[in-house]
């Protein structure tokens, strides 16, 4: 890690859902221009980590993006909404708070932290083009130029520009999700499982796109089950197991790690 600016600083991060601890004390930093990958098996806590960084989950410890605590501009706590269903009416009212109403979503996007969720959260009943347009909702700029950039990156989106998002294939949807994120002109792109269920062909397209994005100066944090895919792209890799980092280092070092070789690289 060079001496460049620290974009994201995470310190002793803990997240619990009821009695279950999803993250149990995670610390790491991401500097401007880094490509960081968080790898690990399903259920290790990667999605929770990305949700926490994006402000969707309440947490203990500290997450600072651009020196500002994420907690102070939470977007929403979807976990709490889920939990509501288990409660009596009285409790339900008591625990719902203003938290869901903060201006978090606006400021987060304005500051360039753009999140691509595992579920993609596209606007299914809108055309590809409109989905992309909405990407510029907070961060305007030269829309057509950005659109051309995205279409260059993912030519298939241009072919399908007038199709409804929900009619796209899984791979196309993933490209659209990344494309929409890029429309927001991200400073840091946070991706959760972008290759899940995709064909090798599409994976390759996405890999190329991510490489180019990083070259353009965008910081990338990638949470990924596909270890090979992540290691090929990242400068710095963290292996997460049971809510903790089990290994960390650059890809070369980790490829040599016996544990990673036997469990994740199948060698």
């Amino acid at each position, binding site marked *: 890690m060079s001496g460049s600016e620290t974009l994201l600083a995470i310190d002793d991060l803990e997240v619990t859902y009821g009695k279950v601890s999803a993250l149990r004390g995670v610390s790491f930093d991401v500097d401007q221009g880094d490509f960081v990958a968080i790898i690990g098996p399903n259920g290790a806590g990667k999605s929770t980590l990305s949700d926490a960084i994006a402000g969707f989950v309440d947490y203990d410890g500290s997450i600072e993006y651009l020196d500002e605590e994420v907690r102070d501009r939470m977007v929403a706590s979807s976990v709490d909404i889920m939990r*509501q269903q288990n409660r009596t009416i009285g409790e339900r009212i008591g625990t*719902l708070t203003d938290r869901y109403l903060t201006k978090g979503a606006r400021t987060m996007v*304005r500051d360039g932290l753009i999140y691509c969720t595992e579920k993609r959260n596209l606007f299914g009943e809108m055309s590809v083009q409109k989905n992309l347009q909405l990407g510029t*909702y*907070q961060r305007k700029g030269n829309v057509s130029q950005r659109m051309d950039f995205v279409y260059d990156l993912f030519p298939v989106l241009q072919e399908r520009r007038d199709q409804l998002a929900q009619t796209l294939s899984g791979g196309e949807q993933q490209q659209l999700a990344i494309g929409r994120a890029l429309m927001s002109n991200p400073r840091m792109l946070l991706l959760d499982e972008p290759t899940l269920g995709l064909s090798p062909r599409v994976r390759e397209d996405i890999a190329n796109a991510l490489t180019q994005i990083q070259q353009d100066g965008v910081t990338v944090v990638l949470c990924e089950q596909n270890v090979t895919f992540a290691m090929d792209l990242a400068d710095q890799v963290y292996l997460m197991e049971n809510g903790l980092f089990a290994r960390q280092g650059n890809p070369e070092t980790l490829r040599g790690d016996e544990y990673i070789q036997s469990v994740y690289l199948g060698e």
Partner: protein
Amino acid sequence: MVDILPIVISSIVKGSLYALVAVGFTLIFGVGGVLNLAHGATITIGAYAAYLIGEGYALGAPGAIAGAIIVPGLFGALMYIVLIRRVQDDPVIVMIMTLIASIGVESLIGQIGPSGQQPQILVSGNTPEVLGVSVQYHELLIVFVSLALIGALFLYVNRTDTGRAILATSQDRKGAFLVGIDSSRINLWMWVLASVLAGIAGLFLIPSEGLSADMGLWPLIFSFAIVILGGLGSIRGSVVGAYVIGTVEVMTTSLVDPKLTGLTPLLLLLVVLFVRPSGLFGQEVQV
């Protein structure tokens, strides 16, 4: 023997009026995922505001129109900010809250407001006869304004940034967060917009129904039938549903028995609910 033309005209007038109410009702559901049971009370508020400002302060039609827009709009904003925002993620609590609020508002108006007044607040008189039928100018106005407002709404939602943000929020709230749309702002705006539409409906109800605290109740109930029929959250479905329900209602009362008023739309609603809960026009939010 039965003259079909008056029935058709009545159906269109009813449908136009219901559409104003139902579209607002469905907007709030589509975007916020909650049913606003105080929507009927908003209609009443619009009517009383129009009457009190228009007639009471002798500001005439402009005053009445301003009253029917501003006061319900403020009420909608207040409802959302004070009462709903904190509980908006729990649809059942929202139903309870809005129901309590509507009862409170209606009983307050019933106590302190006038009742029974039925002035021709905007226009009066009838058109000349065409094909042996003459229509009240007031009814023409309802149809015209309703179509214009709903048309404008379609354009607004499809052509503007905020409109697209509304659609985005209704289709995927988390997705909207991801592109930086502040859903509570959008929700607030929806409550205001829907309340204004309801207020205008209230204004139109004055000459035909007269002022009463519960004048918004039946339009609200018809809205249930309309939005279930059209698919909760679908604006287009609500508009079509409004004309369908308006026609069904008019047909029942004019051709079968006036005593059945209100019953057929409800029965229709039950059937749709049990057979195809997502409504006749698909399920999730769309224009």
